[in-house]
């Protein structure tokens, strides 16, 4: 049995390589209509009127909806409430009612027989808008009470995590360091834009929805509540999905409009977002302004951390609620020994696209803020930045360690083995000291080359998940679980976990994901949790199948269950390999009267549910070597490396792929991607030419090393979750490398490190030197 731990080829690849992927647009239903959403062209306005007459009269138009047609419909709720924060005034209605609050806010829905005609008709919807003042900055706009919030303030609430007496720690400190840092606005922007198909079956009174990802069961519940249907009347069916990265698959206004229109018209409805819509309508992320203070004793040991941040959450609170703020705040202290910490994040609405959780939410930001402040502190304290980290990293003798905090209701138990050892081992492996020496040598020749590193604490595995495994009389094995395939290879991984139990080839296992008619409850794919939580549920379900198969096979073979061993898809008597029976024959026997009479569920069907008691905390380190062009300010990465403690890799190649791909997304957010707005709140990045992802030629050699030194103690597979560690530390490591390259005495100030920002840093440094 060697399926787990092997880099087996992916089950998904064969269909995708042939062009046989079934993405949402490949779902074509008879009589299908197309939805086009009309969106606000201004950032903040009172809606004086919407004239839909011309659109309604356009050829092909079947229906035009505005807020008036949705009277009594509640706004889109949050899926994760936050204690002490009332999100109600900030929730988004499916169609804007009274006011629009950002460019892209849906104001009308046009349903047509043809997608081109739908776009034509949408352009005929006339909006009479009276523009209002815009707020585009969370910090300066925190105390506003805009008319469109009808009495509520721009600040939604404050998330505050603290332990220890942090003010006393600062009072007693030998050294304190303060930094003000900002992170720009960027997001997941998957290559396939969002889309959904819904069909109402008037005969069965049931709705089928294709294309939900991430949290299909939550979306089913919200759809049911908003439409006034029972959950069992809704069947969510997965499709292939062209990436998620946390933002695809949340319940958005369009996720209501599509099934609502299917219900009202009785015809199937398809909606496909175009790219420009996606860049203003799907969740943005990251934009935060931070102040961080660090307190050290005379031996450079951290005594305390104080953090305050203003998070620009955009125009509304979307389904994640306060998750980004919670993860920013609760994990601010990272993998360090910090006796006292207080970190608060103010969630502030502005007139920009609402934000959500994007791969490593909160951690991309706080790792940048904390790790950049550590490099600043190292300079101020006169100590090497690597050494300052070594002094303060938690080591084996201190772990596992309970942080005196609860995150999402669960105790924060740092379950790693040795953060210091990880850092030492990975520096040695990558030869980081040689990178630094190389940078120093280059600088003596007048080049602007620097090296930087960052240590990170990640988190994974949250909530519960369920799975069903069944073996048929033909021997066919199927597993149904509640995850969603958004590109990570979850089908392959689940098949490997099942294949391990029955000693069969991975490709012989069929995987069904988030089919709500087959599996009644599941959680989905987010927070690096699919393998940790869903994979464990799958293992438990497979174990249950095996337990019954043993009992039945023992009777059939005339031996005891404990005498049987699993070998090549059979149960065999230990030491007598010729006395064996295949699982399919055991399954067939399970349907005979002898075994049905036991009162058990017939057949070989196992069900598993796993509820994680707490999150597991993976960890890693990022390293960058960068060169700045003194003429343009362009940053070129020369080398990059990531080490990551995964606990146990079910498929090492796929873990590697997650870390590498995540790192490149992090590089995008650090150097290229930026949702900029003009002074009226008009978005300036509305195509993939203006919103620039990294391309193949932009990247250095990137080394990824996966460590399996510390199996997660909290789950039977020992796995820790791989999705986000590649992204989480990039801003930090690259900012430190650029700071080193430029010889800054202060900070880089903000991400992304666009050439204009870097040129300003170069000029400021030159002026500083001239002043001396």
């Amino acid at each position, binding site marked *: 049995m060697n399926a787990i731990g092997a880099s087996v*080829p992916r089950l998904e690849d064969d269909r995708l390589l*042939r*062009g046989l*992927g079934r993405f949402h*647009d490949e779902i074509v239903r008879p009589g299908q209509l197309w939805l086009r959403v009309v969106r606000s062209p201004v950032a903040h306005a009172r809606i004086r009127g919407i004239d839909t007459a011309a659109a309604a009269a356009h050829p092909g138009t079947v229906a035009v909806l505005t807020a008036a047609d949705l009277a009594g419909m509640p706004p889109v709720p949050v899926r994760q409430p936050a204690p002490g924060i009332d999100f109600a005034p900030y929730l988004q209605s499916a169609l804007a009612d009274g006011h629009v609050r950002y460019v892209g806010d849906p104001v009308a829905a046009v349903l047509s027989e043809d997608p081109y005609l739908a776009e034509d008709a949408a352009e005929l919807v006339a909006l009479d808008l009276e523009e209002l003042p815009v707020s585009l900055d969370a910090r300066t706009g925190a105390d506003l009470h805009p008319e469109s919030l009808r009495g509520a303030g721009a600040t939604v609430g404050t998330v505050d995590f603290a332990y220890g007496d942090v003010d006393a720690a600062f009072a007693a400190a030998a050294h304190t360091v303060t930094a003000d840092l900002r992170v720009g606005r960027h997001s997941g922007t998957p290559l396939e834009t969002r889309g959904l198909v819904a069909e109402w079956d008037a005969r069965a009174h049931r709705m089928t929805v294709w294309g939900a990802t991430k949290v299909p069961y939550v979306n089913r519940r919200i759809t049911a509540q908003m439409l006034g249907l029972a959950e069992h009347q809704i069947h969510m069916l997965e499709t292939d999905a062209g990436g998620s*990265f946390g933002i695809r698959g949340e319940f958005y206004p369009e996720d209501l409009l599509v099934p609502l229109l299917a219900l009202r018209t009785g015809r199937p409805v398809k909606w496909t977002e175009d*790219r420009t819509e996606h860049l203003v309508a799907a969740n943005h992320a990251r934009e935060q302004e931070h102040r961080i203070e660090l307190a050290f004793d005379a031996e450079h040991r951290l005594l305390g951390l104080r953090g305050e941040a203003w998070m620009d959450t955009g125009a509304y609170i979307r389904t994640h609620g306060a998750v980004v703020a919670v993860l920013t705040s609760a994990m601010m202290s990272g993998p360090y020994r910090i006796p006292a910490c207080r970190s608060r994040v103010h969630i502030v609405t502005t007139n920009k696209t609402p934000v959500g959780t994007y791969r490593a939410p909160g951690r991309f930001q706080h790792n940048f803020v904390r790790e950049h402040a550590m490099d600043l502190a190292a300079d101020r304290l006169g100590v090497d930045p690597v050494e300052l980290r070594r002094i303060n990293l938690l080591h084996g003798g201190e772990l596992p360690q309970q942080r005196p905090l609860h995150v999402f209701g669960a105790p924060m138990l740092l379950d790693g083995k040795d953060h210091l050892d990880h850092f030492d081992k990975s520096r040695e492996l990558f030869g980081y000291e040689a990178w630094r020496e190389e940078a120093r040598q280059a600088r003596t020749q007048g080049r602007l080359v620097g090296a930087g590193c960052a240590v990170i604490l990640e988190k994974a595995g949250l909530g519960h998940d369920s799975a069903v495994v069944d073996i048929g009389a033909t021997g066919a094995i199927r597993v149904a679980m509640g995850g969603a395939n958004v590109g990570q290879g979850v089908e392959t991984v689940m098949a490997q976990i099942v294949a391990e139990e029955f000693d069969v080839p991975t490709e012989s296992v069929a995987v069904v994901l988030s089919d709500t008619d087959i599996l009644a409850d599941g959680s989905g794919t987010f927070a690096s949790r699919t393998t940790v939580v869903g994979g464990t549920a799958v293992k438990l379900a497979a174990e249950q199948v095996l337990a019954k198969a043993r009992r039945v096979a023992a009777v059939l073979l005339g031996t005891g269950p404990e005498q049987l061993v699993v070998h090549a898809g059979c149960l065999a008597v230990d030491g007598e390999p010729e006395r064996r029976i295949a699982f399919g024959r055991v399954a067939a026997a399970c349907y005979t009267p002898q075994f049905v009479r036991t009162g058990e569920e017939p057949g070989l069907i196992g069900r598993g549910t796993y509820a994680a008691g707490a999150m597991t905390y993976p960890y890693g380190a990022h390293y960058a070597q960068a060169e700045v062009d003194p003429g343009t300010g362009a940053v070129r990465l020369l080398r990059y490396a990531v080490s990551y403690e995964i606990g146990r890799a079910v498929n090492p*190649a796929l873990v590697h792929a997650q870390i590498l791909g995540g790192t490149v997304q992090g590089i995008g957010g650090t150097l290229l991607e930026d949702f900029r707005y003009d002074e009226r709140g008009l978005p300036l990045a509305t195509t993939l030419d203006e919103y620039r992802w990294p391309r193949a030629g*932009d990247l250095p050699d*990137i080394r990824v090393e996966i460590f399996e030194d510390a199996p997660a103690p909290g789950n039977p597979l020992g796995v820790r979750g791989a999705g986000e560690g590649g992204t989480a530390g990039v801003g930090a490591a690259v900012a430190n490398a650029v700071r080193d390259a430029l010889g800054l005495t202060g900070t880089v100030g903000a991400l992304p490190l666009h050439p204009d920002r870097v040129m300003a840093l170069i000029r400021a440094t030159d002026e500083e030197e001239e002043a001396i």
Partner: protein
Amino acid sequence: MTTPVPLELTANGAAHTLAVDPRRSLADVLRRDLRLTGTTVGCETGACGSCTVLVDGEAVRSCLMLAVQADGTAVETVESLAEGAGPDAELGSLQRSFKEHFALQCGFCTPGFLMLTTALLRKEPDADRARITECAAANLCRCTGYEPIVDAVEAAARRGAVALEGA
């Protein structure tokens, strides 16, 4: 609405006679009229290249080309890359190399990269890693970080097995 315009082309060797609205893109006609849905559309502005197909052997962004502009041409899409016909056809050499190198994750960009690099290796079978990277920089991938894609194309080039002639 406008008057449909006659259009004749071959797609993966099969001849088609159509009448299409002149504003429709080649990508749209391939997907909706010819049911060649392997070609995906990621941006509609030519930035991402996921819709790359071959038109008379040249890599083309099929979202930017009007279908009527393809009149009289031979179009090749990802569906032509398997060796042989039918659902049991073996994956082609470049497809196999992508699988071996874990060069796809969500798979949405994959048909575009396969067609882009098929065109490259037909013209430049000895393309080195730097040239392959330069070519791959024409298209966008949001999942893999590109290195596995370049690895896959380089390995296929070294094997020298990419079909020189299209369908």
